[in-house]
């Protein structure tokens, strides 16, 4: 039952990830919490679950020639150092604090998306006439 639920949530998260052009971590973490993992385990597992999603997404985008690989390597170089720093900080925080911080992040992203939906509303008004 848990396995079936995980597959369904994964597919739904993937559709949303494809729609919004992200890796899906913001959905994977709450899904994994729902499946019974602790905050640290959910975050760690989310990072691994992102890998196949971005692999497929990058493969498709590369065919359209949209990826600037020089920027990818520079971003990746910085992120290698950053991800270790972020991980070390996460390991020092207790699960409750980390979960509340993550919750605040999710709310911030929700507000940003809500604002974008309202702004696009104005921008996508059909031209008069």
């Amino acid at each position, binding site marked *: 039952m848990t396995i079936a639920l995980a597959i369904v949530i994964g597919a739904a998260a993937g559709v949303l990830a494809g729609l919004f*052009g992200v890796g899906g*971590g913001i959905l994977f973490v709450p899904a994994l919490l729902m499946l019974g993992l602790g905050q640290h385990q959910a975050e760690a597992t989310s*990072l691994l679950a992102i890998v196949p999603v971005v692999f497929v997404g990058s493969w498709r985008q590369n065919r359209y020639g949209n990826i600037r690989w020089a920027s990818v390597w520079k971003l990746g170089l*910085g992120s290698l150092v*950053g991800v270790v720093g972020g991980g070390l900080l996460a390991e020092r925080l207790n699960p409750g604090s980390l979960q509340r911080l993550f919750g605040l992040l999710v*709310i911030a992203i929700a*507000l940003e998306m809500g604002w974008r939906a309202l702004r696009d509303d104005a921008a996508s008004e059909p031209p008069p006439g």
Partner: protein
Amino acid sequence: MIVLIGLFAGFYGGLFGVGGGTIIVPALIWLGQRPKVAAATSLAAIGITAVAGAIFYLWYGEVRVLYALLLGIPAATGAVFGTAFQQRLQSRVLTALFAVLLAAIGLKLVIG
């Protein structure tokens, strides 16, 4: 500058278990990249963050590989459909619905 963006996005990704696309995409657009190029470049860079982060947390014994596969493999399939839907659906309505869903999840996590 781009290395610094990567550093910050990686830190955020490692702390919260996400890829960091919400940081990289706006930053690249701010630096003058077209949105489509920014999103695609971000996606590839997230791959590096996610692999590095997963290896870091494997070291700490926090990764549940079975759960990652159970979510990640269907998600990769779903992402192909999501990209295709992107062209056809009212993205404004979807963005608003997604914002409401995330707001509910966020509130639940903060309140506990």
